[in-house]
Structures are given as C-alpha cells and as structure tokens.
C-alpha cells in the first residue's frame, strides 16, 4: 500500500469517524431525553467550577508535593483521572498529567483526546458558560489540582444538553451517562450525592459500590460537542467520547479482616478533531485590522476549510483488580492499561512552489523593497480579498491541476501510530487520619512496580492532493519507529508524630530506546536511560489554626527522547550533549486559619542542571533545514507566593492570590548545529549565551482576586479580576549561539538577537451571573470586562533576513509572532439536564 492509498484510507476513516461524531452529537441527546424517565436524577445546585476554591490547593500541599509524579496510595485502588491544571511555582516542570489509576496518560497539552475525555466526563463547561477562566488570561495562574472518578461506584446517571451562544458563533454539546447494576433485581440506578467529585477527596469511602446482590455494576457515558470557535474565525472542534466500565465488588476475608475486592474493566475512546489558530506578526494583525486574525483557513468553493487540523483517536482498555481492607489500613492493586491508536496533524505542505500561506513574509508590504508593490500588497488587505488574505484553496486546486509534476500543494498528514501496554502492581499498609474535612494516609508504607512497553510509528502521508496527480518527487517523507521499554520501582513512607508528619518517597527507573528508519534502513541500537526521583516532605499542624510545611524534591531525568530524534529522517544524529538532567526544588509554606479568614505564604526555588534541548529551524545562514542540539543548560527559578481567603458567610467568599517569581537562565550550555537531512555537522561545541535571560513566559508577577456570592432564588454571581506582568518571550537558542553571534554584527543587531520582548501587563476582569430553574440552567458570562487587548502569548520565529549592504552581511531577525487575548465578549449558555 503506497502513501497515497494509506492517505485515502485514513481520510475514509476520518470521514466515517466524523459521521459517528455527528451521530453521537445529534442522536445521543434525544436518546438521553427519552431515557429520562428511567433515571432517578440528582441535580447539583452549584454550577461546576463556580466555587472552585483557590485555597483548596493549600490543603493538598504535602500530599501533592510528595506524590505528583508517583502513584498515590489512596488512589491506586480506585479509578480516576488526576489533573493538575498548571504547575505550581517551584515545581521543576509542568505537572499537567492525566492519570488513570496508577498509570500516567499524556500531558493534556499533547494528548487532546485524554483531555477531552477528562473534560467531558467531568463536564467542564465548553470553553465558557458558568466558569471563570483566569487561566485563559494568565499563564501560570491556574492553581487547581483536580480529581475525578468515573468508576461505576461514582458516576451518576445524568444527561446534559448544552447550547451556547457567543458573539460570533455557537457551540453545541451533549453529555449522557448512565449507571446501573447488572443484577436484574436491582436495576435502579444510584446517585452518590455525598461525593464531591470536584474536590480532592479521593479517599472518600462512602461509595455505594456494593449495591446489587451480585455485586456487578456498569457505567456508561457518551458525549459530543462541536462548533466553531466563539471568537476566532476558522477554528472549530469536533469532539466525542465514549466510556464503558464494568465493575465487580465483593467482600472477602483477609489478613486484617474483611476486604473489599474490586475488579474493574473499562474501555474509553475520545476522538478529537480541532483546527488550530495561527500566530501572526504585528504587521499582519494591522493589515487585517483584527488582532484575532487567523491565517490558517480559507474558502473552498465558499466553504471554510482549515489548513491546520489535529486529530486524535487513541482508545484505551483499563483493567484493575484491588483489595482493600474495610478500615483502609492495607491494600493492593494490580492494573493494566493498553492503548493503541493514532494521532495526526494535517497541514499544508508544498514543493518547489510559492508559499500558499497568505501571511508569508514575502507577500506582506514589508516583504517588498519596491514601495509600489508594498502599496499594492497593503491594498489587497484593505480590500479584504479573501482569496489572498486567507488560504486560497480554489487557487491551489487550479495550480495543482495544471502541474505537469503532479501536486505541488498538498495536505500532508503527519501521523503517529502508537501502542502502549503497561502493568502496575502496588500495595501498601498504613493508617488513616481525618482532619480538616479530608481523609489521608497518616502513617504507612507504600510501594509498587510499573513495567511498560511503548512504540510509536511516525510517518507522513498525503491526506489530500488538492486536485493534483500523485507527485513524482519532492515532498519530504519520513517513516520511522521508536520503541521504548522500561520499568519503575517506587515507594513511599510516611509517619506522623509529635513533630508533625514526615514523608519520603522515591522511584528508580530504567528505560531502553530503539529506533528504526523504514526509509533508510537504519537502526539505532538500544540505549539505556535511567531516572530517579526522591522527595521528602514535612508538615506540622498547629491544631486547626495553621500548618507549616517544607518539601524537597530531587529528580534525575533521562534526556528527553526528542533528543534522540534530532534528525528523524536520518536517525544518524543523537544529541551529543544529552545527559541526565538534575532537578532540585525546595519549598516552605506556612498556612493559618483564624475564624473566617485563611491565608498562606510560600517560598520556593528550583534549580535545573544539565537540561538538553533540540531546536529545529530553517537556517538562513546556510539555507537549509537544521537542528540545533544543545545540552548543559542550567536554570534557576525562585519566588514567593501569598494566598488569602475571607469566607464572609456560607454564601459569600472572597479569595486572592499574589505571586512574585523569577525564572532565569544561569548557564547557556553548548550546542551542535547539524543539517536536518544529511546530519552534516555545520558547527560543533558552539556556546549559547542564554545566561541572564528569562527562561519562561510565565508571568513573574500575578495577582488574582475572586469573589463569589450566592443569592436567593437560585441566583449566583461571581467576579474575578487578575493582573499578570513580567512576561518575556522565550529566547531562540540559535539566535543566542556563537555560530551567529561571532559574526561581524553591529551592536544593534546583537541586541535584536539577544533581546527578549516583554509581553506587557495583562489585566483581566470577568463576571458571571447564573440562575437555575428546575432542570434548566442559564448563565451569562462576560469576559475581559475592561475590554483590553494584550498579548496572550508569543514566540520568536527562528528566521533571519540576511542582506548584503556596504560590502558586509547584515542579520535581522524576523518579527515576533503573537496571539492576542480575546476582547470583551459574552457567553450565553443554556443547560438542560435530563
């Protein structure tokens, strides 16, 4: 089967899948409505997310810091997703993970299916509704950690249909779930109203899992959502999920008395399709007279078509068998997770042709030296000729049709076929303690072993030849496979005494990588990589009035495996500077509660030593694709964070957080720059001058104030204000390399290459009003009340203009690209629960 056939087959599969999504979207809702009479509903009065408690995180400090990268004692015997919305300051890396029991799924930033499954199962509002999104405005401001358990014991029967109108578009979402017993005599569903599924109370033991004389229960959930982006043209998403779990609960005798025995089997799939918004320069935003301009779409025969689409279908199978004594003193769990599926990224590619993208710098007024042409180019934007200010699909089709060499423009699908199998065995012994409303392990020993095999087949194929014949040459194709086999041994110990609670945990891992390139026949031998983690935490509780906690975390990480794939076409080059990376972080936190006021202060610091990175870019110095492979980069991050909350009464609360920090490079390290396709070394051991630069676009200052007020007759209002400042763009490694800086540069050129642009101050004020009447909920959310337009994010394109002038070469970096925040806008959401 050649690439074209594979592409066609995949397209066919996508088409079928889209039909299924549409079916789910439009069929599940009515089915759910018809099933209304069969279900006994519980209607939560609070809209999810409205009362997200910023300070709730404080309760979990010790627990979180100890266990964020290890399976949790409390949770391995259960099933759930663990999600940390954003890394807490001081954590060495982002902690965004979706976890299924003891198994890590992927970062939601990489795996949208996982995120969708998580988001839809817990019914996150569809990008709006009755939830406030400060994190949308500020990187790093989301401090929540969340836990959700959709096992049969916890999921409840419900259905939800959501219609949302925003200023430019609409969204439509459907969620339906059902829970019941497989025993005919006990067919009524069960709702567990005592479980707060949005909190961190993973150890709540009030499940009703023993319902039914046979002990068998099932849970089913399905949902879909789709629609265009509320505010950015040309962006859409099309998600669905399906969840089915069967659980058998029983009681058996054990060493410590009667034991709960739970066997769970679950299958889930969350196909996701979404189109991606572009980043653009100030010039383009100005030409389009729209700071939300998106260049990644255009009209094909009058219908919108995106040029950047991400798709993901990775079904999973989860099996778990656990034993736990009735008192929660001891437990053991054996679980397995198998995943297989495809992630793909479809985008426009071209061969020996002019760029099809309307915002290519050569088409912009600044790209023309001739002022007359620059005026002409600006005029096209002023007239808004969509064939030239968006992707001109019809034009591309016509060019392809007349091309004697076959298609020169094509939609190319970069595919990752993945398979992963993991098995985990864990067990522990310990007491439990209930304090401050939550239960946790107070003393005990816990450990386990995880073994896994993962393989990825990475290749590209034509998704659409846009009317052209199969091209005879030119497009860059790749086809390679990466295999990874590894295991991790982990354990933790915790004790509570007069001096507080002390906990230590650690893990040792070993992994082997193998690499095979189907096009070149090359294989890279197995490579052994090791990792180790050590954490220690201490928590002292002053009665109910306060806490003092300290944590130390050391993490030895293997070189990221992207280093291995520095030159995927050839697989000949492995980052020579990739070494194990040392991460050390420490934090101290004090927290007090007095009456209706609660506060906390944290000091934190994190040192990362020996980080390795790879940067792929078009190298304008040598006119070829290149890879910069760096190692030995050191960064230091530190800061202070204060939080406070005033719980005026049960209906009204005010909370705030303020954080000041510094993320900086200590040492730039060294790098090799190699040709991207031949692996020819263009320079070796070139120094990187990163020292003194900011190392993250996270704000160095964040302030956030939020108040929620519950009014009579089902009304609720909330107001949230925030301010982020001190945000800097991540530097380009290439621009900071001696390979470029050692040339004959003027001081201005040097400053332009090494300078870091500030993204400015980002204030935000949002409000929401919510009312629920019976099964219907209505919310009006107004975001960015101040109406300000500020840079939400930005990056430096690693491109240079090299011009000869006065008999010498001059180097000017291409302008930075940004995405702007959304202006003042509304979301009007109508919910109907059935």
């Amino acid at each position, binding site marked *: 089967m050649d690439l074209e056939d594979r592409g066609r087959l995949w397209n066919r599969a996508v*088409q079928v899948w*889209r*039909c*299924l*999504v*549409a*079916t789910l*979207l*439009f*069929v599940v*809702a*009515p089915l759910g*409505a*018809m099933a*209304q*009479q069969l279900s006994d509903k519980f209607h939560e009065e609070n809209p999810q997310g409205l009362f997200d408690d910023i300070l709730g995180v404080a309760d979990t400090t010790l627990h979180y810091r100890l266990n964020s990268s290890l399976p949790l004692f409390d949770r391995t015997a259960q099933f759930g997703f663990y999600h940390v919305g954003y890394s807490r300051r001081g954590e060495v890396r982002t902690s965004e993970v979706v976890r299924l029991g003891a198994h890590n799924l992927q970062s939601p930033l990489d795996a949208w299916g996982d995120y969708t499954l998580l988001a839809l199962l817990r019914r996150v509002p569809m990008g709006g509704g009755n939830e406030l999104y400060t994190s949308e405005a500020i990187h790093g401001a989301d401090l929540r950690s969340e836990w959700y358990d959709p096992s049969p014991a916890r999921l409840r029967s419900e259905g939800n249909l959501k219609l949302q109108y925003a200023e430019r578009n609409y969204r439509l979402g459907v969620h339906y779930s059902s829970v019941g017993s497989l025993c005919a005599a006990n067919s009524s569903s069960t709702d567990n109203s005592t479980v707060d599924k949005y909190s961190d109370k993973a150890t709540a033991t009030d499940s009703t899992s023993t319902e039914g004389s046979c002990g068998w229960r099932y849970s089913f959930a399905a949902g879909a959502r789709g629609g265009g982006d509320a505010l950015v043209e040309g962006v859409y998403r099309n998600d669905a999920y399906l969840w089915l779990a069967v659980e058998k609960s029983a009681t058996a005798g054990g060493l410590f008395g009667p034991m709960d025995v739970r066997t769970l089997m679950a299958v889930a799939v969350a196909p996701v399709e979404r189109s991606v918004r572009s980043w653009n320069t100030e010039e383009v935003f100005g030409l389009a007279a729209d700071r939300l301009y998106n260049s990644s779409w255009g009209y*094909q*025969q*009058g*219908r919108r*078509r995106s040029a950047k689409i991400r798709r993901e279908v990775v079904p999973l199978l989860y099996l778990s068998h656990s034993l736990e004594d009735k008192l929660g003193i001891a437990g053991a769990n054996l679980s397995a997770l198998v995943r297989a599926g495809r992630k793909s990224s479809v985008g426009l590619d071209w061969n*020996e*042709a*002019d760029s099809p993208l309307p915002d290519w710098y050569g*088409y912009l007024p600044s790209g*023309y030296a*001739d002022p*007359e*042409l620059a005026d*002409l*180019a600006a005029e*096209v934007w002023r007239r808004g*000729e969509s*064939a*030239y200010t968006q992707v001109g*699909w*019809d*034009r591309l*089709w*016509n*060019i392809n*049709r*007349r*091309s*004697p060499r076959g298609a*020169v423009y094509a939609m190319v699908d970069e595919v990752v076929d993945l398979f992963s199998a993991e098995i985990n065995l864990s067990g522990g012994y310990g007491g439990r303690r209930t304090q401050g409303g939550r239960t946790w392990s107070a003393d005990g020993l816990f450990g386990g072993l995880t073994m896994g095999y993962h393989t990825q087949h990475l290749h590209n194929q034509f998704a659409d030849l846009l*009317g052209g014949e199969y091209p005879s040459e030119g497009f860059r194709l790749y086809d390679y496979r990466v295999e990874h086999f590894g295991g991790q041994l982990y354990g933790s110990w915790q004790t509570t005494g007069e001096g507080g609670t002390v906990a230590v945990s650690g893990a040792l891992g070993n992994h082997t990588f193998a690499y095979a390139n189907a096009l070149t026949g090359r294989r890279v031998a197995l490579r052994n990589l090791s990792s180790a983690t050590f954490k220690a935490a201490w928590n002292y509780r002053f009665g109910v009035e306060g806490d003092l906690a300290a944590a130390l975390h050391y993490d030895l990480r293997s070189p990221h495996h992207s280093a291995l794939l520095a030159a995927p076409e050839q697989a000949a080059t492995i980052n020579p500077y990739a070494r194990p990376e040392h991460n050390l972080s420490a934090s101290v936190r004090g927290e007090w509660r007095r009456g209706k006021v609660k506060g906390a202060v944290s000091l934190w610091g994190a040192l990362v030593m020996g980080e390795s990175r790879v940067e792929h870019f078009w190298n304008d110095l040598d006119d070829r694709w290149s890879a910069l492979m760096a190692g030995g980069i050191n960064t230091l991050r530190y800061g202070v964070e204060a939080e406070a909350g005033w719980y005026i009464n049960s209906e009204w609360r005010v909370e705030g957080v303020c954080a000041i920090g510094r993320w900086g490079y200590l040492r730039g390290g060294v790098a090799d720059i190699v040709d991207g396709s031949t692996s020819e070394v263009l320079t070796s051991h070139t120094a990187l001058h990163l020292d003194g630069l900011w190392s993250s676009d996270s704000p160095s200052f964040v302030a956030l104030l939020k108040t929620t007020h519950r009014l009579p007759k089902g009304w609720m209002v909330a107001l949230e204000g925030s301010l982020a400042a001190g945000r800097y763009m991540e530097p380009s490694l290439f621009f900071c390399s001696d390979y470029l800086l050692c040339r004959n540069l003027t001081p201005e050129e040097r400053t332009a290459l090494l300078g870091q642009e500030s993204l400015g101050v980002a204030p935000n004020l949002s409000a929401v009003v919510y009312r629920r009447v019976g099964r219907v909920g209505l919310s009006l959310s107004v975001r960015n009340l101040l109406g300000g337009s500020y840079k939400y994010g930005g990056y430096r394109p690693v491109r240079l203009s090299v011009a000869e002038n006065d008999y010498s070469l001059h180097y000017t970096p291409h302008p930075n690209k940004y995405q702007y925040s959304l202006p003042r806008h509304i979301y009007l959401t109508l919910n109907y629960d059935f």
Partner: protein
Amino acid sequence: MIFRNNKIARLALVLWVLGGWLWGCAALPEPSSDLPTVEPNAPLALAAEWADRGVAMPEGVVFGGVVVANDWGGNFYRSIVVEDESGAVEVNIALYALHNLYPIGARVAIRAEGLSAMTYEGVVQLGRAPSPWNDYRVEPIGVPAEIDRRVVVVGNPTEEESVEPMVCEVGELTEQMCGRVVRVEGLRYVGTDTDWGSNAYASTSYRLFSTPEGDSLAVATSRYADFATCPLPADDVSVSVSGVLYRGRHFGADMYVLKPRTYEDICEQQR
C-alpha cells in the same frame, strides 16, 4: 414526556438527527476546473510596437499566447516567455515558482493595460514601468492578487499543443525571432570554462559556441540554474541547444544568445 405527546418535538427530533448526519458526512465541494474566459484582442507584435516609447499600454489591451519558457530549471528568474504567431514577449513577474502558475504549454491572456514594454537584449519585456534607478528594464508585476488578475491562464497545457522549438541555422536567425524558442544544432564549445554557469562575479555566464560554418553564438546560463555546474562538452563534441533567443554584445561582438530552459534543452550529438 416531551417526545411522547408532542408531534412538533418528534418532527424536530427527526430533523435534528438527519441534519446531524448531513452535516457530519458532507464532504467539501471540489473547486470547479473551469478556467476563466478572457479573450485576447491584440497580437504580441503590438507589444514590440509599443516597446521603448516610455508610455503605458492603452486601455483594454489583452494579449494572448502560449507559455514557452518559465523558471523551471532555474535559468529564468521571475519571468515567463509567451509567444503567439506574431511574436513573443518576456513577462516579468515578482514570484519565485512561476512554473507552477504558468507551466510550459499553458495558454495565457495578459491584461496589459497600464503595463510598460521595453526591449532588453532583443526581447520585448512586459512589466510595470521601470524605476528611475533601473530605467533600462521593466519592473516585475507584483503581489499575487495583481499577478492573477494580469496574467490569466485560459488553457491548460495539453499533449497536442506541446511547444516545439523552431530548428534554425545561426545564419537564419533574425532579430524578429528574438523571444521565440529555437534550436541550433552542430554547436561546438569554444573556450576554457569547465561548466555552464559557475561565475563568482555575475549572475549569468555566457559560453561561446561556434558552428562548422564559423558562425558564433553564445549560450546564457544563470549561476542559479540546476545545470550551472554541469560540465561543458569537450571541444570535439557537437551539441544542439534549444532556448529562448536573445541578441546582445558578448565576447566583443554583437551576437545571438540562446538561453536554455532546462538541461534537457542541451543535447550532445556526436564527437
């Protein structure tokens, strides 16, 4: 229950489901393959008449012709050559991959209103008015929208309309033929260079060839041409060269110049 007693609700449900299917399963429509209709109303010879007058082409003038040369092969830079029965013009266009827009053999219509024509090395060139600091050549037509409006493909290349060079002796070449694609056979290289286009000091290299009759002819090769570094034929090897005909002063004399489009335009014949 709303669906049990309400016909309108049931109808809405059916429509909803059907609508979902249609919405989810509908494929994007393919763009029409019909080409625009633009009728030429003037022969290309008219461009030669207007050349070098320093005034823009009059309103309503539309030339028509077949593309005989483009930048595929790298020897032409930002230009295509179009010819009809009456003559040929080189159209200067500010894009880099014109071979995709205007493949050889495609029929084009050129809306020439407001454009300028100038003669450069014997060939009429069409473009925007020359700039004051570069007043011997027209400026290229720019920005994609304007290019698409000015130079419109009205017929795709077909097998039947393949572009065949006119075979001539050097002595048969005339200045009126400049801009057309011709082939001259029996040429032998005269000189000491080793390849067709390497040149550290200029973007175009000229190689001198002679015929057995003693006539001379230059072959022009850009240093960016795909075949720039290909070896020249030995002095005892005869070659035939096809290319667009120019006339200029090279090697101390006025002579005709052939500019091959690709390496396939150069064929070794015999030793």
